[in-house]
């Protein structure tokens, strides 16, 4: 397994390098002056001085500088917020997004899996119907709607939570629930579908016939196999949650990484774009490897997956 794992990691690095390079090519190709902020046109001398300072006169030299820096985990200066480096911005924002994302995924899995299992076991009943309705709403409603509603009700009307921001326990629940809802809906749906399939399998019928308690069959045997599709979804979903949701961060004023993805692109802030893309792609690759390892742990029949 170790050699296969190493091979996956090396391929993962190659993937990240390709993503980084393609992103750089896109950044230097799109229209818009990264050094100009606002409507006021930058004087030509000022722009030349800035390009000289950041070595932006030649794209390939600039790319070489960025790559050398990235290898040392030094992502260079940010253009839009010139008093801060990309490293400082990431250092401040990434832990926030990771915390919020982890909590959201805990909620999503902690609620989604049991509800999906129960819904599959009680198929076509009232609970199942309610679950399917919840799934439909959860998948369909955009987070800026659910977030705004929760904020208005809990923070403004009932004063049970602060209106946005970050730093205390009280700031956690609303954005975490908002972020968790769409993931929860998907996990519920996948778990339900997968459980329905697995509950019809021979080994489940055999286990029941042997006299094992239904609860034991469902939770210890069937779920173990039914969880595999959910696990496949969890890898990229966790990466997406951990690197921040622009919408949730904007609605709740959470100083996470998601806003930097979008704002850096809008501002043509090359250093910050590449830094955030590198973080996201690395996380995505790493989590996919983790998922593959967990596959083998969950189902020894596919231990050769990695």
């Amino acid at each position, binding site marked *: 397994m170790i050699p296969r794992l190493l091979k996956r990691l090396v391929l993962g690095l190659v993937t990240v390098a390709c993503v980084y390079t393609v992103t750089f090519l896109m950044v230097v190709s799109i*229209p*818009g*002056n990264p050094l*100009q*902020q*606002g*409507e*006021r*046109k*930058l*004087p*030509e*001398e*000022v*722009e*030349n*001085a*800035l390009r*000289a*300072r950041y070595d932006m006169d030649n794209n390939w030299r600039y790319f070489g500088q960025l790559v050398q820096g990235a290898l040392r985990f030094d992502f260079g*200066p940010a253009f*839009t*917020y*010139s*008093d*801060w480096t990309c490293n*400082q*911005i990431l250092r*401040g924002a990434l*832990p926030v997004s990771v*915390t919020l994302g*982890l*909590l959201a995924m*805990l909620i999503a*899995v902690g609620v989604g899996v049991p509800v999906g299992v129960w819904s599959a076991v009680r198929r076509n009943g009232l609970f199942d119907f309610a679950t399917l309705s919840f799934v439909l709403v959860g998948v369909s409603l955009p987070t800026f709607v659910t977030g705004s509603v929760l*904020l*208005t009700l809990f*923070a*403004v009307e009932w004063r049970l939570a*602060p*209106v*946005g*921001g970050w*730093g*205390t*326990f009280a700031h956690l629940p609303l954005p975490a629930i908002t972020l968790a809802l769409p993931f929860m809906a998907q996990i519920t749906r996948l778990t339900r579908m997968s459980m329905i399939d697995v509950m019809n399998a021979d080994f489940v019928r055999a286990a029941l016939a042997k006299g094992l308690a239904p609860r034991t069959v469902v*939770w*210890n045997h069937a*779920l*173990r196999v039914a969880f595999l599709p959910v696990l496949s979804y969890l890898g990229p979903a966790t990466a997406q949650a951990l690197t921040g949701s622009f919408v949730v*961060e*904007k609605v*709740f*004023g959470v*100083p996470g990484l998601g*806003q930097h993805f979008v704002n850096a692109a*809008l*501002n*043509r802030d090359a250093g910050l774009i590449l830094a955030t893309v590198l973080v996201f792609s690395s996380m995505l690759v790493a989590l996919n490897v983790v998922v593959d390892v967990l596959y083998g742990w*969950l189902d020894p029949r596919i231990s050769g997956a990695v």
Partner: protein
Amino acid sequence: MIARISLACVVLFALVLATFSMGAREQRADFTYVNPSDIHTLDPARMSWIQDFRVALNIWEGLTRWDARTLEPVAGAAEFPPGISEDHRTYTFAIRPDARWSNGEPVTAADFVRGWRRAIEPGTAADYAFLLTGNIEGAHDYVHWRYQAVARLKQVGAEAEFDAHAAALDERFARVGLRALDDRTLEVRLHAPCPYFLDLTAMPAFLPIHSSIEALRTRHRSAPLDRNGLVAYDPQWTKPDYHREGYPGLITNGAYRLVDWTFKRRARLEANPHHSVAASLNCRTIDMVCFDNLNAALMAYESKHVDFLPDLGVSYDHELARLSLSGSRPDFHLCPVMATYFLNFNCSSLELGGVANPMIDRRVRKALTLATDRVRIVENVRGRCDRVAYSFVPAGALKDYQPPKGLTWNPSEARQLLAEAGFPEGAGLPPIEILYTQNDRHVIQAIARMWETELGVRTNLHCKESKTFGEDKSEHRYMVARGKWYADYNDATTFLDCLITGNGNNDSGYTNVAYDALLHRAARTADRQARAALLAEAEAVIVEQDCPILPILHFTEPVAIQPYVSGLYPNGRLWFSFRDVNVQR
């Protein structure tokens, strides 16, 4: 398996919560206000956003500062008024003996020389360097010499040339009309009289810089330049907790000092104990908090977590204006801003995409101007109490200046002019390509409809994302493009200079020798009334005759101030001093 997974989840959950238990809960500041997007930079030489000005001008103090109510220049770190020579070209400032940095050291004239010199240095890349180079004698020549040398060093790269250039820096700078005669006396010599110079000296580009910054200067071969020949400092110098190379952290000389700055969360100001007004400050601590989402900021204001909202650009701001005007929300204030929203006509390109550009003809521009009913746009389309603009300079904004009347809505004259230009009822006129951004869509659609209805012209609307819009506008890839201009200082030239031939902000590419000559004459006229008359005559050329721009409205911006807060005075520059703020919750 479930037990193991559940245990792992519980452990993770506990770790997440533990993260929050480790942070100490801080006391709420005396006064809290919102900055939508955090400070772009606290480097006073490089800042250009009003949100940055708000912080900088409360933690620093220039030779003069703006009065909180009237925005007139008053005494800052220097005695007021300064000595002014008879030719109005030499200003002698006496630094106040009680002017102190936040570490207790006295503010000296050399600190101002350091700050102003740094602002004009090429490496600083200061947006507002032109305010210094355009006024101070010899500054433009010095900067030109520096830029030439930097360009040459880049090509040649010779070490000997680098060393020679570095050795000549101080000698060349000595030719600039800026010198510290002693610790407390600063002499500034201008190349021409500048009636608004004391307004400029309150601006961030003219702030002093403490000598501790020199510890963070980049040096190459022992010279105070980087390897490109540029003056450069570690950009972290604006942080209060940055201590590389023995740097003590940011030192400022204003009524407040910066004690904490967490990116995208909060900046905390505390009273500067060494400032002359320290004892009289009601608010000892001020928090600037960041809310990217102005709707959430407004909710925080409604919940009284925030005391002041200086930026209220929400999509329903017309409703806020209505509430303010009706009196049902006296805490919402409408500020008539010194800013103009207008359309640029491309006056320079003969062709666009193979099609002849009709905007070259001033009769077409004037016809489109006369066919635009600005009253309807302000009242029906915007509905947020903006003022109708018939001039570039907002009427009534400057006490010594009355702009020309401009052109009012007159569709019949518009049709006549269009016919004279060879396009009767729009026949033969190519579709008018209008460039704008998402926020302008309602106004632009209304204007396009007016032109189609009144003149029979066809329009093509190009809504673009802001950076792409900016590039297209700079490259003159448009026939008509939306424009916005906010006043930098209290003088009509802050607007009118934009349309001088070759000015970097002359987006329309307009050129008129007579217009340039009028502004040039005004720049050399000491008499205020005569100068104002020249400027009004110049403005009449652009808003009544040539029409390179179509002024539409002057902005009115709502701000929200909690009823228990006093000492904040809504004004046309959206700048607020915090030294008079009193919060009685």
